[in-house]
């Protein structure tokens, strides 16, 4: 791979056409940027671990608070309130459930940051003019290829699919 072919599409349909043809042509798509979460993205990279992280964090948070409530009410500060048992576990549950949900959410968002590579405010992708379109109205594809006839074939597929802009980037 000695070059990257860039293309911008103004509709999801055109972008999907190009994507399908490029994959069918055994081309290597090295980057995709979109203005919304298209259903056509399907399952793939970026999703792994988000739900498990949410569940694990939520259960761990709830268990930790339940342990704290039990320990503090029974051992650290046993307080007789109207003769109720010290380990009044049903009464501990409202706080435990709420806290578990919160920590589950924190776990999920932390995994989102990790999977999406967020907090990288200065990423090389921001220097690419085509990527700028993706946050407003453009569907962007980047395809690895070799300069010359190979690149021309890729650019032709993109243009045929309806690219409104394309270019070849060589080192």
């Amino acid at each position, binding site marked *: 791979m000695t070059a990257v072919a860039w293309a911008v599409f*103004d*509709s*999801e*349909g055109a972008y999907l056409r190009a994507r399908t043809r490029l994959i069918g042509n055994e081309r290597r798509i090295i980057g995709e*940027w*979109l*203005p*919304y*979460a*298209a259903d056509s*993205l399907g*399952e*793939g*990279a*970026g*999703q792994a671990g988000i*739900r498990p992280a*949410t569940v694990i964090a*939520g259960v761990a948070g709830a268990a930790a608070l339940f342990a*704290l409530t039990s320990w*503090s*009410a029974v051992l*650290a*500060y046993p*307080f007789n*309130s109207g003769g*109720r048992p010290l380990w*009044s576990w049903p*009464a*501990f549950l*409202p*706080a435990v*459930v*709420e*806290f578990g*949900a*919160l920590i*589950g*959410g*924190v776990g*999920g*968002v932390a*995994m*989102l*940051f990790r*999977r*999406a*590579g*967020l*907090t*990288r*405010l200065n*990423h090389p*992708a*921001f220097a690419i003019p085509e*990527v700028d379109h*993706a*946050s*407003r*109205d453009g569907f962007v594809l980047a395809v690895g290829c070799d300069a010359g006839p190979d690149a021309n074939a890729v650019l032709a597929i993109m243009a045929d699919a309806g690219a409104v802009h394309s270019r070849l980037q060589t080192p």
Partner: protein
Amino acid sequence: MTGRRWTLPSIATLSDVTEAVAAPLMDRRAGRDWWLAVIGASALALAGAVAIGFSLEWGPGLWGNNTAVVWGFPIANYVWWIGIGNAGTLISSLLLLTRQKWRASLNRMAEAMTLFAVSMAGIFPILHLGRPMYFYWLAPYPNTMQLWPQWRSALVWDFWAIVSYLLFSILFFYVGLVPDLATLRDRPGSRGWQRFYGFLAMGWQGSARQWRAQERTHRTLAAIAVPLVCSVHSIVGLDFAASLMPGWTESIFPPYFVVGALFSGFAMVVLIALVMRRALGLQGVILPAHFDAMAKVILAAGIVMGASYAAEWFSAWWSGEAADLRVVRFEFTGPYRAFYWAMLAGNVLAPQLFWVKRWRTRVPVLIGVSLAVLVGMWLERILIICETLSIGYEPSFWRLYAPTLVDFAILAGTVGAFVLLLLLFGRLLPVVSMHETRKLLAEEVGA
């Protein structure tokens, strides 16, 4: 084209969506009306701050609370605000999970409403502590006195409910907002604003990988949010139901409180959406059909509220419990009866106007019914507390309740602060989700 459209035909391209939402925010200066609203809301907030200052200096003796009606305005207002606050995240997450297309134009406003309303709700239990400077004692932390919170107390439940729900709602709001912050960052504008939005966008590029992660996280959070919201307002319902007072010890309270929250929350979303639509010129993405859909929900919730009131009366009659029957008689014929009838009119009768299709999209009717519902729900929160506590089991403890000017000033202050936060929200962040509306448009017209 796939059936009904939720955007106007004038919104034809993805760029149109971006411009319809971002241009009023970034290209137009705040107008005279906005500044007048800011001044009015600030004046109310200031009045509330002064009243809170007096309350901190001289204590709860300035309020109408007495030895019987110990909860009074602070807890009633807390329940009202948290009800409105619960609805925003519930509306947004429920509509997301059920894939309701009309969600795209309203979810951002509903979620912002949640954040601001829950913040207002949190003020009241703290003030009501009597010694608000020690509110942090509700949190468990190692201390030299070796004290720990009383986990069996409804006050501690409220602390966890408010804090957890507020922080969770901020996460949910932010996950949905990040792509739009990147849009504002990349849109031509002043360097300062680009830096501001760029920092908040946290490096969002819109790559396929990021969208998959964002979508998965958003739906996962929504799946947690629905039971969380129900549990938060159920806890508020349990504050009452777990006590031993006539009219409160009823198993219907938790679900009845959740429906009441949805009811008042939708009424508030209708008002906010009407104002934002007009002020920011969002007629292209907020259509009469959106108000029609919300009016139907308000109508359905109003019917459930009516059934819940009837269930309360029936339970009192069926149980034969003298104290419960006395409370029901007190509601209809006692000194607060005018407020009770007004509450029934606002919560049960007014929403019936929405049976008429054309009234579901008429602005004056929408405003009138939404205000009636909000006032009706506020009266309900006040009356739940005042009626039961005014005429409990022990006749020697029967006292009537009358709020003071300070009570009203604190309530007005929270209303002012809430409106002020909404005004700032309308000037700083996109009030409609641009990325979700783009997706909606693409589905509708294949843009």
